[in-house]
């Protein structure tokens, strides 16, 4: 027999990611079938209800109250679970337990009066208020949180422009200011390339490749994904361009965004038209000729963006790069070897991504080789997946989208949902190639490769038992100075039979070549 047991603690607050990760651990305890550890928000109550572990007492609590609820075997005692949860909470706080943590922004400022940047990652409904308070005090702001209304975003950015401040976000995943990585960002060499990016993993990939090529970053300003929407009008990208233009340490400017509204694209390009510093623009999938009319360099991929920026920063020739680091012969050999091992039914592509822009770029590159790709991020309604949990023909999935992150941390923090999906895809005998990203750096999971490897091996074995060969191609977005060990990560993937390419674009290109060869 199973029973629902729970514990409530009034006025005890923990951040949502910590609690989501702990929920996952509690579920693994023997005898526990379902578990939710969270704050008493409406969303968490809803999740508990769906799992049939919502009690009347939990219904009554508020967002400042903490609860644990679970469905477990008769012999499981709530006291033991509480003890375990407390142990995990202490563990997570071990490095900061003795630090004084003021309760408000005001009191933080009293304690650290020379503060100049506020990094906000509270639930979306509270983020705008905190940002407003910070801007009014003359502080620069980065909002990592999503679920902030576009009206609030516009108002906050207008206030920032008025005060000459940075208002990065909402939904800004990545920034590097004065060489300090904020939120999800990598450890990158200092240098003379300044970036304004409306896309988090796009900026991560460009900065990482710049670093690999021996270049460096002066600043990487994030704007949040909606900055170039018509309603916001590119306010922060324009502000960022202005700052980099005047920054003596920036000699090359790079702009990264998904294709903006036409009117806004023109506004941005006009803003860079007369600048004396070379400018590289990557409006992912944007029209090259239109961009080049403004006297700037148009990039064809994130890697190409980095290559052009580094060439310009070193006074070298600028060329389009759409190839591989490996020689043609080496690439041909890989393609041939992979196809030889497959059986005749294997023909489909499955992209499984934790980084949104990396997924977007993969779709663009692979679709050139195989035609339309279904996705949960497709703008064409005909290509939009009906059920995100079920791939159809060629499919590419961004696991960072809302469908996968309600009540769960982003896949860059918790890669388990994506890992499970690899095995699911392997069970489909028509799948030929799986393409994946691994994003390292600050903010993310401490070992995304280690967390995913068992599932990769399981998937490969499963395919093999069915007489197939599952080709898994990946790239790692990271540098050698990131907290995770990139060299070891690559080695472990390769030992498991994964082909690791130097960039997302090259990984996608290789996937495209293999799939094209199969259909020929």
């Amino acid at each position, binding site marked *: 027999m199973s029973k629902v047991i729970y514990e409530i603690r009034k006025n005890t607050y923990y*951040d949502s990611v910590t609690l989501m990760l702990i929920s996952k651990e509690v579920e693994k305890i023997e005898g526990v079938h379902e578990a939710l550890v969270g704050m008493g928000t409406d969303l968490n109550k809803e999740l508990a209800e769906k799992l049939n572990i919502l009690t009347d007492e939990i219904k009554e609590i508020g967002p*400042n109250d903490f609860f644990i609820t679970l469905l477990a075997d008769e012999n499981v005692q709530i006291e033991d679970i509480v003890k375990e949860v407390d142990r995990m909470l202490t563990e997570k706080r071990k490095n900061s337990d003795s630090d004084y*943590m003021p309760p408000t922004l005001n009191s933080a400022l009293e304690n650290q009066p020379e503060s100049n940047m506020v*990094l906000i990652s509270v639930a979306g409904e*509270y983020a705008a208020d905190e940002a407003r308070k910070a801007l009014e005090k003359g502080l620069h702001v980065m909002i990592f*949180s999503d679920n902030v209304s576009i009206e609030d975003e516009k108002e906050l950015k207008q206030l920032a422009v008025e005060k000459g401040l940075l208002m990065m976000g909402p939904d800004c995943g990545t920034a590097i200011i004065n060489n300090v990585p904020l939120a999800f960002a990598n450890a990158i060499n200092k240098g003379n390339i300044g970036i304004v990016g409306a896309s988090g993993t796009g900026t991560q990939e460009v900065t990482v490749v710049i670093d690999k090529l021996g270049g460096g970053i002066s600043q990487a300003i994030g704007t949040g994904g909606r900055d170039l929407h018509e309603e916001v009008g590119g306010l922060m990208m324009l502000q960022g361009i202005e700052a980099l233009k005047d920054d003596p340490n920036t000699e090359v400017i790079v702009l990264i965004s998904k294709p903006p509204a036409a009117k806004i694209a023109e506004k941005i390009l006009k803003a860079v038209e007369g600048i004396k510093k070379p400018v590289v623009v990557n409006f992912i999938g944007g029209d090259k000729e239109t961009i080049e009319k403004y006297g700037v360099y148009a990039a064809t991929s994130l890697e190409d963006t980095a290559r052009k920026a580094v060439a310009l920063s070193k006074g070298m020739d600028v060329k389009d790069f759409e190839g591989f680091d490996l020689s043609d012969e080496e690439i041909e050999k890989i393609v041939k070897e992979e196809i030889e091992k497959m059986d005749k039914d294997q023909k489909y592509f499955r992209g499984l991504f934790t980084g949104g822009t990396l997924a977007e770029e993969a779709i663009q590159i692979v679709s050139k080789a195989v035609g339309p790709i279904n996705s949960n991020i497709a703008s064409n309604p005909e290509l939009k997946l009906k059920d995100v949990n079920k791939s159809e023909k060629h499919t590419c999935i961004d696991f960072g989208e809302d469908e996968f992150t309600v009540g769960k941390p982003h896949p860059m923090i918790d890669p388990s949902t994506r890992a499970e999906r690899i095995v699911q895809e392997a069970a489909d005998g028509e799948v030929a190639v799986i393409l994946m990203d691994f994003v390292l750096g600050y903010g993310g999971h401490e070992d995304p490769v280690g967390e995913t490897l068992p599932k990769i091996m399981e998937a490969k074995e499963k395919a093999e038992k069915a007489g197939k060969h599952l080709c898994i191609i990946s790239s790692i977005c990271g540098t050698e100075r990131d907290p995770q060990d990139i060299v070891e990560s690559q080695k472990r993937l390769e030992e498991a039979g994964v082909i690791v390419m130097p960039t997302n674009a090259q990984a996608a290109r290789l996937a495209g070549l293999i799939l094209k060869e199969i259909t020929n």
Partner: protein
Amino acid sequence: MSNINKLFNSELKVINIGLEKFYQDLKEQKVQVINVDFRPTAGGNKKMASLLSKLM
């Protein structure tokens, strides 16, 4: 010089409100950072929060 360019010439000093992981990461890199032990104002009651913010 604009405020942003002034920031580029200063040492970054951060107030973190939200995920403690971001605070830990900055601390690990020896960046000056202080973490706010955030709780929604007035227990998340929006009307009460808005009244309080007018008082403060």
